[in-house]
């Protein structure tokens, strides 16, 4: 469970990236954050695993106050939080298997990770994660030889291998083609339902967010302007977030007609 209480983030030059965030995310939610570029979506997401620091307020993740955690404690918290990036962030010259196994580094000491001393169970777990996403046959291929959708699945497998309680996704489908977008989003939905993992995702496309999420959060200029279920998102809400209602041509179209 994630609990924001009066969280602010102010940069040294006075710019306020986050203002008065009060938010509670429960276990098992599929939360999508929508808003203009630069409104603070990425910043909000990255404060959850302390990739960015908060300047005031309290942020409790899975029962721990993450803003005060450092060093080994921080690594222990982070190993329970998986993160997916827009540009996949895989180690290009390593094999897919090594990339996925890198998810387990939080569970070992530095010495063990340098010499690659993972247990056999963890290696099997990594391969099983690949299998669940359907790319087991590419397990020992170099990571940059896969297509974009497959690389994002490898990133998802890496997050799954961490056996996390929470997965953060920073615009996970922004660089994928329309068909792959839908299958990756389906994978997210399946993970959320089958393993009961909370998912918090930044999305560009509002109708993808509306279709898959159980809860929508709208951010404008660092403040939360909407917090509710997808059914409550009306044109008036999108005007509040984006400044105007979305035109029909800006929506993705018939999302229900796909296999």
């Amino acid at each position, binding site marked *: 469970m994630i609990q924001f209480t009066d969280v602010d983030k102010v940069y040294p030059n006075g710019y306020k990236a986050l203002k008065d965030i009060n938010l509670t995310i429960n276990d098992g939610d599929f939360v999508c954050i929508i808003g203009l570029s630069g409104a603070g979506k990425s910043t909000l997401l990255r404060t959850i695993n302390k990739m960015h620091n908060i300047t005031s307020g309290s942020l409790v993740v899975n029962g721990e106050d993450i803003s005060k955690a450092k060093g080994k404690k921080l690594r222990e918290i*982070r190993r329970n939080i998986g993160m997916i990036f827009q540009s996949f962030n895989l180690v*290009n010259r390593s094999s897919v298997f090594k990339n996925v196994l890198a998810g387990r580094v939080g569970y070992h000491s530095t010495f063990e990770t340098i010499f690659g001393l993972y247990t056999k169970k963890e290696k099997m777990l990594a391969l099983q994660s690949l299998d669940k996403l359907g790319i087991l046959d590419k397990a020992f291929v170099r990571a940059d030889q896969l297509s974009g959708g497959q690389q994002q699945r490898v990133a998802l497998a890496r997050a799954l291998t961490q056996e996390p309680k929470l997965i953060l996704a920073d615009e996970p489908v922004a660089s994928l083609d329309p068909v792959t977008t839908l299958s990756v989003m389906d994978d997210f939905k399946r993970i959320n339902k089958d393993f009961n993992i909370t998912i918090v995702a930044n999305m560009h496309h509002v109708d993808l967010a509306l279709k898959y999420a159980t809860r929508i959060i709208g951010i404008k200029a660092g403040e939360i302007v909407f917090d509710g279920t997808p059914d409550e998102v009306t044109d008036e809400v999108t005007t509040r977030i984006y400044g105007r209602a979305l035109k029909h041509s800006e929506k993705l179209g018939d999302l229900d007609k796909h296999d």
Partner: protein
Amino acid sequence: MDNKNKNVNQTKALTKEEKRQNSTFNNILRQLHLRGYETYLNPDDAYNKRPMLWIYDVVIALVFIGVILYFAIDIKFMSTATYNGTRLGELWNGFINPNWSYFFGYGNFNFNESVIYKIIETFAIAFIGTTLSSIFSLPFGFLASRKIVGKYSIISEFLLIVIRTFPEILFGLIMVKVVGFGSFAGICVLSIHSIGMIGKMYSEQLDVINDQPLEALDACGASKLTRIKLGVIPQVAPNFLSVILYRFDLNVRTASLLGLVGAGGIGYDIWVNSQFNTWSMLSPLLYGVVILIIFVDIISGLLRKKLI
């Protein structure tokens, strides 16, 4: 009140700037260069007012030629030349009739003294020296890269520059005094001198790595060393190997050079034979050196192509 002062200061600054713009020097420059930025009313106008940038080139070339001629006369370039045609003839004879027993090591010469042995010895010096130095320059290279260490990289960079610019022949002479004649001195010199070169190339490769996988590893909960091992090293490993192979190529030449001062390898014999004018012994040595370098060039080129 403030606004009024600001206006006055601005007008003062403007006139100073205007004065600078209109000085004689700038006027001349404008004649040559800035004419091209005026608007042209007709083609004749455009032709007459075109920028004459070639004047810059001509001036620089004239200055350069003047300096060269001055230097050439100053060091008496040609007057210390004593052309010696007969020596050239002897040299040519030596090249046509190399001493094959010296080359292969039969007859009057032991295998230990033959050219082939010396070539292998030179190769061995270069191989050991490059291998040792590629391992020892890893810490130097990592510490000299701004991305890994931040501001403190400048210490290691400075150290590497000092090691690099120390002339290797001088270092060879010193090592000969420390460890005696022979190839061991050559290995010491080559290892330490190469640390400077290879360390610098390592740090250059490390400065251009992709940050993104490191960010992802950070989010998984990896410590700094783990990030380096899992994120940095897979990216730069092929580049490092390519650097080492390139350096090996150059080190073979340096290894033969160190022989001049007695640090082992083929250089010593070349020096001795050229002093005593024994051309038929010199030519097998030269053939040997050329064959060795061509061989190492080809192999290193092939392996480097495979790495990319």
